[in-house]
């Protein structure tokens, strides 16, 4: 549906544009131009590296920065210990990177840098980005599961104590629920971020059109929408944290299946 005159198009913010390079930069039919999505991935990686490097002082009495980094690593460590047990220790680097990368991406995408003319791009609002993250988690589950348990890994699809006549049915149901995991994992993050950004954009349209409507009812609508927008922005910051946490938590639960079966 095309945007009408004077209406803010809520989907325009998700457009991927090449910043560096053109549409003709192709390898095997795939465009490799440096897009705004890639730029913000690089920025969040850089921010994450700076954040972690600042906390790697290993002082006996930690300063504020070291304390911040250590509380994040401790948080991931205790989450993995609770969900996987002692075997979860080796996944701390991966889950920590995953959680912090998504958290930084979500929060950087919400930063009001548009005031300065820099428009943040939330790459977690694209299924191609979150889908790759969830397929990586799925691949690790498959590799670990088959490496550790061999073909015994298929007992994951037949819960312990299933009556014999039920086994074919349960197997199919468990197999489908297993195969759907990467989709639901990636879809949740991408839709949650996209929904929030669309909502903010629609409200910003109300504010702009409200104030443009002239004196009378216009400013009332504008001010009310603006107050609502501030509240929604706070909610979105919460959602950014919760979605990063849920992604890391579900990845660790799936790893638990691979490590310990049922």
């Amino acid at each position: 549906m095309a945007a009408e005159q004077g209406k803010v198009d809520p989907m325009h913010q998700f457009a991927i544009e090449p910043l560096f390079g053109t549409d003709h930069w192709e390898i095997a039919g795939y465009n490799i131009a440096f897009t705004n999505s890639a730029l913000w991935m690089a920025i969040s990686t850089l921010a994450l590296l700076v954040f972690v490097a600042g906390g790697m002082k290993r002082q006996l009495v930690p300063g504020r920065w070291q304390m911040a980094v250590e509380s994040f690593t401790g948080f991931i460590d205790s989450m993995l210990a609770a969900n996987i047990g002692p075997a979860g220790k080796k996944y701390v680097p991966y889950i920590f990177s995953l959680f912090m990368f998504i958290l930084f991406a979500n929060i950087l995408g919400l930063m009001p840098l548009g005031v300065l003319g820099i428009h943040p791009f939330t790459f977690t609002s694209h299924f191609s980005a979150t889908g790759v993250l969830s397929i990586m988690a799925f691949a690790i589950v498959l590799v670990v599961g088959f490496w550790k348990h061999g073909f015994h890994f298929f007992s994951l699809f037949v819960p312990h104590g299933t009556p014999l006549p039920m086994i074919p049915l349960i197997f199919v149901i468990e197999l489908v629920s297993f195969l759907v995991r990467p989709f639901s994992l990636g879809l949740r993050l991408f839709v949650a971020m996209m929904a929030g950004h669309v909502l903010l954009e629609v409200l910003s349209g109300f504010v702009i059109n409200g104030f443009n409507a002239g004196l009378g009812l216009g400013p009332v609508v504008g001010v009310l929408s603006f107050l609502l927008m501030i509240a929604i922005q706070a909610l979105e910051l919460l959602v950014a944290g919760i979605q990063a946490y849920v992604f890391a938590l579900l990845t660790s639960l799936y790893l638990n299946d691979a490590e310990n079966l049922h």
Partner: protein
Amino acid sequence: MEPASAKLIGAGLAAIGAGMAAIGVGNVFGSFLESALRNPGAADGQQGRLFIGFAAAELLGLLSFVVAMILIFVA
């Protein structure tokens, strides 16, 4: 009925799903809080399950949002 108007009506109907998911998410957190106040000692250990329930309830609401978006922008 015009196909365009049918699409918009369908998107509006999909919003019911978002409201239902709101009930679900409220149920998850409400039940958690209710039982956490009865036994605060056990509450911290159940936070993982709280967020799993939240994620499951929220995903279904988000799916209805996806349906609405597909109806408006894709179909």
